């Protein structure tokens, strides 16, 4: 008798806490700011649509300062202090390599919306991502560039002290080898470098058909503008990894960014009605068009919400994990979205090129 009396009545609506770990300062700040905008837009739409009694998202945003150390602090705060049901982030793969292990250990699902380095989801069965890995995007980019521009020899330049840029390099190297493209020279730099002229001078002397670069946006703009200043002709295109996927590159490198080729997970020009609506709403709210990072963060919130709705109870960490793993062919702004058996993103990639100060679909 007592047992029945004491049972609490389940609330008609429950708010689900999501912790966002984004880089608002440091090297990843260019991505973090736009990710936050994308996520906030999705949350506002969801909470308005949910109405008074529906299932709402309560977001908590924290800055990981682009460092694994600060990332650990934020993860611990979210898991033990705020007791969030799900974590979205962190912005950089380098941070995720460390922080996601904590979440896995504590049984908190993590949905990465920008990590593309190899091995992130191998950390455990609580780690998901909606960002296509370099291993999917890069071979697609290389094959398309080879087909359209007939390149046969390239030089490689990459950052060798960062999980993401190194992962990008490995993906490029294997894609180039498979495509039968000769690698004339491999040069590296370190995080925080500003002078790339020695490496670029070596590369120039080898006369490559294209320069393949794996770098974050900060270094990417320096590399692109210094390459053109060193007299590397515009007919030698620069092919970048995911780090190049930011309007910041075009803004910073200006004229020098023209012709840069980047593989992308999100096609901004896609006619998908969901995508059209997103681009319009984002542009209206923030006065600038979204980039891929905003799109993936926006899609990530919808994917998470889909899982939360199907989880029972909706704020249970384990239930959310199981619901995430079930997602197949979900309609998102990225296209038909599924998780692979290894919890990686599965949808169709595109190749883009900078033309007239904008990313357009390559080869059209």
């Amino acid at each position, binding site marked *: 008798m007592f047992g029945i009396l004491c049972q609490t009545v389940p609330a008609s609506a429950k708010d689900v806490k999501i912790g966002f770990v984004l880089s608002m300062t440091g090297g990843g*700040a*260019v991505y973090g700011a736009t990710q936050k905008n994308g996520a906030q837009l999705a949350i506002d739409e969801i909470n308005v649509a949910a109405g008074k009694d529906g299932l709402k998202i309560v977001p908590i945003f924290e800055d990981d300062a682009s460092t694994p150390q600060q990332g650990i602090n934020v993860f611990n705060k979210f898991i033990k202090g705020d007791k969030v049901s799900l974590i979205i982030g962190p912005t950089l793969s380098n941070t995720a390599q460390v922080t996601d292990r904590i979440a896995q250990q504590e049984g908190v699902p993590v949905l990465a919306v920008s990590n593309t380095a190899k091995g992130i989801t191998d950390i455990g069965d609580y780690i998901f991502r909606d960002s296509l890995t370099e291993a999917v995007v890069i071979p697609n980019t290389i094959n398309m560039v080879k087909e359209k521009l007939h390149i046969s020899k390239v030089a490689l330049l990459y950052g060798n002290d960062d999980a993401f840029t190194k992962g990008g390099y490995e993906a490029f190297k294997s894609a180039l080898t498979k495509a039968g493209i000769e690698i004339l020279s*491999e040069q590296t*730099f370190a995080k925080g470098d500003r002078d790339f*002229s*020695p490496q670029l*001078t*070596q590369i120039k002397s080898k006369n490559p058909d294209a320069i393949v670069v794996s770098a974050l946006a900060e270094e990417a703009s320096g590399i692109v503008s210094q390459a053109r200043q060193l*007299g590397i002709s515009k007919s030698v295109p620069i092919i970048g990894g995911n780090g190049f996927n930011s309007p910041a590159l075009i803004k910073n490198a200006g004229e020098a960014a023209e012709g840069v080729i980047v593989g992308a997970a999100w096609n901004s020009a896609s006619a998908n009605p969901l995508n059209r609506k997103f681009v319009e709403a984002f542009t209206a709210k923030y006065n600038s068009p979204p980039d891929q990072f905003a799109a993936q963060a926006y899609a990530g919130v919808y994917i998470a919400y889909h899982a939360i709705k199907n989880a029972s109870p909706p704020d249970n960490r384990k239930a959310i994990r199981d619901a995430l793993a079930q997602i197949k062919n979900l309609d998102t702004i990225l296209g038909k979205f599924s998780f692979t058996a290894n919890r990686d993103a599965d949808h169709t990639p595109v190749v883009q090129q900078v033309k007239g100060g904008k990313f357009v679909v390559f080869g059209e």
Partner: protein
Amino acid sequence: MSLFVQQLINGLFIGSVYGLFALGYTLVFGVLDILNMAHAAVFTLAGLGALWLVQSLGMTIWLAFPLAVLGAGLLGLLINACAFMPLRNRPDTYFSGLISSIALSIIFESVALGLFGARTVRFPQGTVPVNIWQFGGITITSLQVGIVLTAAILMVLLTQFLKRSRVGKAIRAVAENDRAARLLGINVNGIIALTFFISSALGGAAGILFGLYFDSLSPDMGRSIELKGLAVIVLGGMGSIPGAILGGLAFGLSEVLTVAITGTSNMRDAVAFTLLFTILLLRPSGILGRGRVREI
């Protein structure tokens, strides 16, 4: 061959910025026998200040550059007045001045962080018109030539100023022996303040050139050059002006050639500092040092 020449030229550009930066360090050291650890913070603030003048007030770089250099000089006066002057007559003035200038550099860096944010910022496109010139496989931009010329002109001006002008001679007199200088009627405190002004103005000029060349400025940019500046003056000989220039060029060349030969920037600092270590073993007073043993 043209590859090697191009790499030498790359080293020359970065080396001349290092030299200009180290010139300010060495000038204060030569006159006062103290290290001004806030020098790198002035480098940062002047670069960011010039950017602010260009971006927010719409000035051309030709006007922003001298204004920011002047501002850097005024910061030098502030450093002297806050970090060094109050401690000058105390015992242990060398050590306490070193510490108080570190404190001031932290304050300056925080000011930069507060005013300009943590992000890397850039001069707007076309701040300096960039023409690219090619000579038989070697590429030079007008910006690079401008940087080397500015650095060279400032270095020559400083040397001539110290050698020929009345005030320059007074600075050298204070450097030699401040007590004797005072007896001869030289306003020693005024000369010291002037030295800080010139030193910081040169450091500021280096900061602006650095920002223009690499097209990237951030509140922590001073840290990357702080240790290098110290190494450069030790390498060239503490207090020696031609030594600072020579040391800067040697450092720039060793960096660029290391990256060029190994194909990676990981060994860059290791080689540069090993070079420094070796030279100190062979010539403890630096390449152009006066051979006199100092007591700090």
